[in-house]
């Protein structure tokens, strides 16, 4: 349904993406992970053309988004995006954050947009916070509004750019729960995340991106049981230290001490 073919992108001398290709099918959830600076966020921004590719193509339902004559604004309305730092519109209440796209892009009348926005807030369990401003909400609540905002446009696919990495550990759960619900309801998603539990639960395929290329791809099972490349093994070990049982960390500190 969405397909990126040989995507290249550079910022000045820095080559960020070096020929990335993959395809996401209907109702599929792809998880992209990899070290920071590997080009994950750039890849997402290239898919919805906030930052157009230097070379390569992006297809949505077999339509080339980069072809001349295609209105990128119209296309972006069909690709939702959830940001690492939420990027909620600070001057608008939660409900208006969700309805602004319906009002200004889909040109729905005020009341209808409001009703739909309220329904979306309900889906992310934020209906009772509808009249709060972003600064009055916790990070987890803000991100759930951010998800509702993306959902409101009924996009073909939603891109998640590290949606939980700016959150306090306590707040990650509520956001992941909402993302899980959405994934299970059959939404096509491309998720950049290091939440391996989430990946395990819903990802149909995981892509490991390093240095602008897809180093390895496979099911969550494949990555957790038998990753092939050393780079991936090392990275997963680091993640394990971060999120795992700390066995690795203890082992290391014991080794240091015994020296």
């Amino acid at each position, binding site marked *: 349904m969405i397909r990126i073919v040989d995507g290249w992108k550079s910022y000045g001398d820095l080559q960020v993406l070096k020929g990335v290709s993959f395809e996401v099918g209907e109702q599929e959830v792809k998880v992209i992970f990899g070290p920071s600076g590997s080009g994950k966020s750039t890849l997402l921004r290239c898919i919805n053309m906030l930052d157009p590719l230097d070379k390569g193509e992006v297809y949505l339902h077999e339509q080339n988004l980069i072809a001349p004559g295609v209105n990128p*604004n119209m296309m972006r309305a069909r690709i939702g995006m959830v940001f690492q730092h939420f990027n909620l*519109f*600070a*001057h608008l209440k939660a409900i208006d954050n969700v309805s602004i796209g319906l009002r*200004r892009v889909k040109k729905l009348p005020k009341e209808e947009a409001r009703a739909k926005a309220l329904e979306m807030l309900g889906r992310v369990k934020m209906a009772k916070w509808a009249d709060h401003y972003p600064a009055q909400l916790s990070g987890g609540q803000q991100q759930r509004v951010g998800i509702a*905002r993306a959902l409101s446009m009924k996009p073909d696919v939603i891109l998640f750019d590290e949606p939980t990495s700016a959150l306090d550990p306590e707040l990650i759960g509520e956001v992941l729960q909402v993302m899980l619900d959405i994934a299970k309801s059959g939404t096509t998603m491309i998720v950049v995340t290091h939440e391996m539990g989430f990946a395990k639960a819903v990802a149909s395929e995981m892509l490991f991106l390093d240095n602008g290329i897809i180093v390895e791809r496979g099911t969550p099972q494949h990555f957790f049981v038998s990753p092939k490349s050393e780079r991936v093994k090392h990275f997963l070990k680091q993640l394990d230290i971060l999120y795992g049982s700390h066995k690795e960390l203890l082992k290391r500190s014991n080794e240091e001490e015994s020296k």
Partner: protein
Amino acid sequence: MFQVLPQPIEDILRVLEYWDHILAGFLTTMELYGGALVMGFFLGLLLALLRQYGGIILSRIATGYIEIIRGTPLLAQLFFIYFLPYSMNSILEAQGLSPIPIGKWNIQTDIIILDRIITYTIFDHRMLVGLLTLGLNSAAYQAEYIRGAIKSVGTGQLLAAQSLGMSRLAAIRHVVLPQALRRVIPAWSNEAAYLPKYTVVVFFIGVVDLFGEAHFIVANTFRTLTTYVFIALIFLALITIVSKALDFIHKRTSIPGV
């Protein structure tokens, strides 16, 4: 022996006899101030947007304008605009074309209060030059205040709006500007407080504003100190009211929780 004692009450009453002049001058000053502030705001907003989002060429033009205005004396700008049509006329005449009818624009009105008739010049070529100069000048300063506020909103807001399918223009209008204009108020109040005092330069091209009337009163009464202190107090009162009003607006429009 012939010591002149200060007589403050008498001095003030003597100056206040010219209340009709003070009122006319105040109206002129307010007209220049209000007109220049509004003109400067809209032009400044445009300049700020061009400088921030205008692409290479337009942003350079906006930057150049801002730097030229901020880098040259206001008085020089005033004289430039004042004398420009005259020198253009001499060129036009040399080519046999009809000159710009500079002195012909003149709208006056008589305001009758109590026993006084105040002949108030609403508009003439001097007022026009004053308004234009102050407006064009203020625009450059206001543009920088507004641009600072736009920058402080951050690109994340713009990206988020665009990710919903809004065009860049719609995103700027519905997302960036509502926040930037709220944020600009404290800094912008600087310009609102500076401008009334800058309006006095129009004295040099013969607009009789509050300051011009002060000279007139001094010439008639010789109460120098009293007159100028009185005029200064009018400015002080005006600017205090404006700045309190802006504080109030800033509080009323502030975003809850921020």
